[in-house]
């Protein structure tokens, strides 16, 4: 069976859930070969085995993570040349897409981004224009490079004993163009990360102020969810920009999305419309968000949200 390269997404050895999704997807179409770049492999290898990596290419050289994106693409390009994989899968995160883009140029291959499903022959499913259209596309030139949106595949464990191979690349000068001087990890607390969370609770204009976001956080914590915010809320300074869900913010596609005090402007819908189940609380019964919901409560969020939080805690 042909190998499929899967770029492991990790922060200093902590493997992101999307990696397990990609390994699961790769196994359905070939032999999953994980590509590890950077420090921390020893602590993560069991996880890659648990999700069925048949092989792991380990590139631990620190130089590969000291520059922005380019070295990773260079390593992948070399692996493609050496191993002739059937395809390369990367997470459709900001950096993952950039790696895919550079790799595509290097190996002169087509690239599909933000794929939400993969059929035979690497035909990718896309949800475009904010979820209004479902399209399928394929790569017609070179080795398919596919950037897969987090949360679009259910990760399935399938224990394996991966073969390990140390790999390295001598970086070109061009790949060393942008130095990473310092990595700043921002406190994210106990909550899951927004783009990979199974449940997201977001607050919008209706929340009315920064202090009131405590209501949203309480509800999120009762569900083990990530917190998001609409652009109106982040523009008003009530919640940090990095939590913005929407067209100019993050795209999320969780199992459950709870929109609190969010009207559902197109800006916001573009970032959350593909969520599997949508629940909204809003006092305006005409709010466009209600066109999307599986369950909607027309009411005052200051009454409804705390009651919902209490009820969830009681049921746990």
């Amino acid at each position: 069976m042909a190998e499929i390269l899967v770029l492991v997404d990790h922060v200093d050895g902590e493997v992101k859930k999307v990696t397990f999704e990609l390994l699961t997807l790769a196994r359905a179409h070939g032999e999953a070969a994980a590509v590890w770049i950077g420090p921390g492999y020893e602590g993560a290898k069991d996880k890659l085995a648990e999700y069925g990596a048949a092989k792991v290419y380990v590139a631990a050289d620190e130089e590969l993570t000291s520059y922005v994106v380019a070295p990773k693409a260079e390593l992948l390009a070399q692996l493609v040349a050496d191993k002739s994989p059937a395809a390369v899968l990367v997470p459709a995160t900001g950096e993952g897409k950039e790696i895919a883009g550079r790799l595509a140029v290097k190996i002169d291959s087509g690239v599909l981004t933000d794929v939400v499903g993969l059929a035979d022959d690497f035909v990718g499913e896309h949800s475009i224009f904010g979820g209004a259209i479902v399209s399928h596309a394929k790569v017609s030139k070179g080795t398919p490079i596919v950037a897969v949106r987090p949360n679009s595949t259910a990760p399935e464990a399938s224990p394996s004993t991966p073969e390990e191979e140390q790999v390295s690349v001598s970086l070109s000068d061009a790949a060393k163009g942008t130095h990473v001087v310092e990595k700043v990890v921002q406190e994210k607390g106990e909550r899951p990360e927004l783009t990979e969370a199974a449940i997201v609770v977001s607050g919008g204009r209706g929340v009315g102020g920064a202090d009131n976001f405590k209501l949203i956080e309480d509800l999120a914590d009762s569900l083990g969810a990530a917190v998001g915010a609409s652009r109106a809320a982040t523009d008003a300074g009530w919640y940090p920009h990095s939590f913005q869900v929407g067209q100019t913010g993050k795209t999320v596609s969780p199992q459950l999305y709870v929109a609190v005090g969010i009207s559902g402007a197109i800006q916001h819908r573009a970032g959350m419309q593909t969520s599997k189940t949508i629940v909204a609380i809003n006092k305006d019964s005409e709010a466009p968000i209600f066109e999307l919901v599986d369950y909607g409560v027309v009411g005052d969020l200051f009454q409804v949200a705390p009651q919902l939080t209490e009820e969830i805690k009681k049921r746990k």
Partner: protein
Amino acid sequence: MNIVVCVKQVPDTATERKLKSGDKTLDREAADGVINELDEYAVEEALTIKEAQGGEVTVLTMGPEKAADSIRKALAMGADKAVHVSDEALVGSDALSTSYALTQVLKKIGFDLVILGSESTDARTGMLAAMLSERLGVPQVTLANKVEIDGTSIKAQRLTDYGFDRVEATLPAVVSVVEKINEPRYPSFKGIMAAKKKPVEKLAVADAEIDAALVGLTGASTEVVDFADAPPREKGQIVKDEGDGGSKAAEFLASKKFI
């Protein structure tokens, strides 16, 4: 400093966006065209850098006649001149071929800095800046929410999933910006009037030494197989809060096994 801002004309997200059934490319007639929102932040950043460092801001766009509207917007904001690459041969170009075409133009017109929005609101591939950097062989300073330029050195904050990276490079470089970087200015009346007199150079593929076989649908390395409207969501249940809205929502979540 020679700053080039790449802008893209995209269908307004507030109008209905469609693909054409024939060649499965974007139906540009179906929706109103507007400048890609994130590119406005790129224009603003270019103008800010020019104001501090001196130089000239050139707007570069690739697209049909209609894309001239986006050029005018950027010129009205304060850019000095524009280059509009427009040719039937370019219709249907994917990200890879678009990056090739723009690279040819950038080599022709020259640059110290290329700035663009981190993604477009239509295709949302988020790859163009990285591709341009790769093709041009210059540093990639992308997903920036803060950019400082001093002579030929550039320092930036690059947004990441865990926070941000502080990065450094030297010019020339390709920069992409996210929306929290600045607040784009509104064109003034004076700016709008002045924009009408600013030079816009129009280039066809041959003028920019773009190989027509490598762009458009012929040159695309990806192919749309099919598309259809997303199945409509089943109409959800909507209840009015009668003092028990929270409990009812909890019941719904329990029925779906979320709690």
